[in-house]
């Protein structure tokens, strides 16, 4: 049995102008210790998908359909107190901006001890000891001194290390990291990503990494999901997706990167922009930007073809792959 299984998840936001569907028919699974990447541009629904797992979709948004099974239990059906035994305990989250996640008026130690004591019966002294240990595990120098500092006394990279230490405090089974290094400089990003990867491997923690950066996905994850306009368009082993993407959107995204073109040449751009979720085109949402579209693409929502972990939603892919 998979550790986490998301089945046909649908999230809607009722707005004055009508109902917006942020996620449509999103299904994926995650095994113990596995690292999964969710890739997409802004507005693709990748963050909503992650938030929905922990029932954190901000109001007025709501989960309008589907199941989220964690060790076989449906998280969407749990009461708030039942959910609290999982959220922040078994499944933890790391957000983009550590300055927004950490409370600026509490010391790091206070925040870590508070978090531990919310989930476990533990004395403050023992909690403090454990917190220092975790700070050491994320390579924070002199953790005994740092633990009494406030977030503003640390650099951006150090703050994100603290956030990772907090996420590891309760020995979770899953960590969901939403663009954890986007706010950081490239040299710090490399360090944080390496740290996160090593900690997940060492502690056998499963990781869901949400990012727009295909280079990071390639370095850290084993399997990847590509999202477009609230729907999964492709899933597969990370290396396979990067080396031979099947969906025209994935291909376009990878080929648009500067490193895929000779220096000085024009980049391979995808024409147009991602549609607003209020106004998703009929049929395949990508068809207005797709070079391969045929009439059927404008009518028919493409079904998934392939196996559970190597699937693609495109009418033309089937056709092309059969022809080869």
């Amino acid at each position, binding site marked *: 049995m998979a550790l986490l299984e998301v089945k046909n998840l649908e999230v809607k936001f009722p707005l004055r102008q009508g109902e917006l569907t942020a996620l449509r028919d999103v299904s994926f699974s995650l095994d113990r210790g596995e690292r999964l990447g969710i890739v997409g541009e802004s507005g693709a629904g990748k963050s909503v998908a992650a938030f929905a797992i922990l029932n954190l979709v901000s109001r007025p948004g709501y989960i309008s359909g589907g199941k989220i099974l964690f060790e076989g239990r449906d998280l969407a059906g749990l009461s708030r107190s039942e959910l609290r035994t999982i959220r922040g305990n078994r499944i933890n989250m790391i957000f983009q901006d550590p300055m927004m996640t950490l409370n600026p008026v509490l010391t790091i130690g206070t925040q870590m001890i508070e978090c531990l004591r919310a989930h476990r019966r533990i004395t403050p002294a023992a909690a403090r000891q454990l917190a220092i240990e975790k700070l050491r595990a994320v390579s924070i120098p002199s953790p005994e001194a740092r633990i009494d500092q406030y977030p503003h006394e640390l650099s951006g990279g150090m703050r994100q290390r603290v956030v990772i230490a907090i996420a590891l405090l309760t020995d979770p089974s899953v960590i969901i990291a939403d663009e954890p290094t986007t706010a950081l400089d*490239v040299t710090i990003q*490399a360090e944080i990503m390496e740290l996160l990867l090593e900690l997940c491997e060492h502690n056998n923690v499963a990781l869901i990494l949400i990012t727009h950066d295909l280079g990071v996905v*390639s370095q850290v994850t084993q399997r990847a999901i590509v999202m477009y306009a609230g729907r999964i368009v492709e899933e597969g082993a990370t290396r396979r997706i990067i080396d031979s993407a099947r969906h025209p959107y994935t291909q376009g995204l990878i080929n648009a*990167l500067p490193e895929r073109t000779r220096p000085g040449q024009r980049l391979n751009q995808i024409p147009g922009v991602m549609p607003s979720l209020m106004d998703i085109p009929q049929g395949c949402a990508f068809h207005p930007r797709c070079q391969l579209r045929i009439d059927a693409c404008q009518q028919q929502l493409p079904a998934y073809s392939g196996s559970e972990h190597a699937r693609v939603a495109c009418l033309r892919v089937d056709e092309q792959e059969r022809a080869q």
Partner: protein
Amino acid sequence: MSSQAVAAEKSAAEELLRVEGLSREFPLTSGLLEQLRFEGGKLVRRQESVRAVNGVDLQVRRGEALCVVGESGCGKSTLARVVMGLIRPTAGSVRFEGTRIDNLSAEKLLPFRRKMQMIFQNPYASLNPRMTVKQTLEEPVRFHSPGIGRAALGDKVNDVMRSVGVDPGWNERFPHEFSGGQRQRISIARALMTDPEFIVADEPISALDVSIQAQVLNLLMEAQEQRGLTYLFITHDLSVVEHFGTRVAVMYLGALCELAITGQLFSRPRHPYTQALLSAIPRLDQERPSHMKLMGEVPTPINLPSGCFFHPRCVHAQDRCRHELPKLFDSGDGTLVACHAVQEGRLD
């Protein structure tokens, strides 16, 4: 690679902009009372400042795209603003086509302002939300050539809008009606309205999505070819630099570490900081993060290290590095490096 090398050679002859010994400090303590401290039983006056740019020497050659890269806080945006005359340098000079412009009055600077335009990072903040596209584009032309006729101006707006790929029929719309990528096209159009020779672009694609970044980068390259533009391109994204830049300048704590033709910099980085920076780019063909580890973190530009600013993080640092600030020197193949270790042959 070869096309970049050719472009670099062609432009080697003519220099458009020259920056010499440029420094800019921002005082942290403004009033006298703030500067007074009680130390060791005495009242002393102490002035602290952020040293954002420290003695930068740079030439921009006509027709090239000179990219300035570095991490946040390295002074690259301050450099761009000083070059544009938006802030004055504390020391040093900026010359445009041989004329010193950093000390000119606003009035005398006007003719240069027409030739130099700027594109900013965030197209949500840099366009006036209460002006239509037409008004936004007309304003710089009305300002710089007040005598222009209404019809000529209208034609010009339409031409420029078409050239950046925005339908001229939308010129009565407001910025909020456009997507981020479209807005950045409008910012570019505004910069092009005065037919500039030189454009300073400060992180022009960092706020955009991957597929839109490619569109805007292509547009900038097209504009460069058609109009013979020269760019000073500020960015932290090294894969964009590798693609777009004719030459690259790497900055660390307000000083230049290395200045080289793009192909050379990426195939053979000389300065230890450049090497670490390049190794940190996440590449599609990597299955694990692999990067050179640096010691510690970037110090604040308030208390700069003595000697080479990079020495506390550098594994090759020796006594000389701790005391003497390295100057840029030609390492033989045209690459300028500021590193004692490279100069002494300790480091290849």
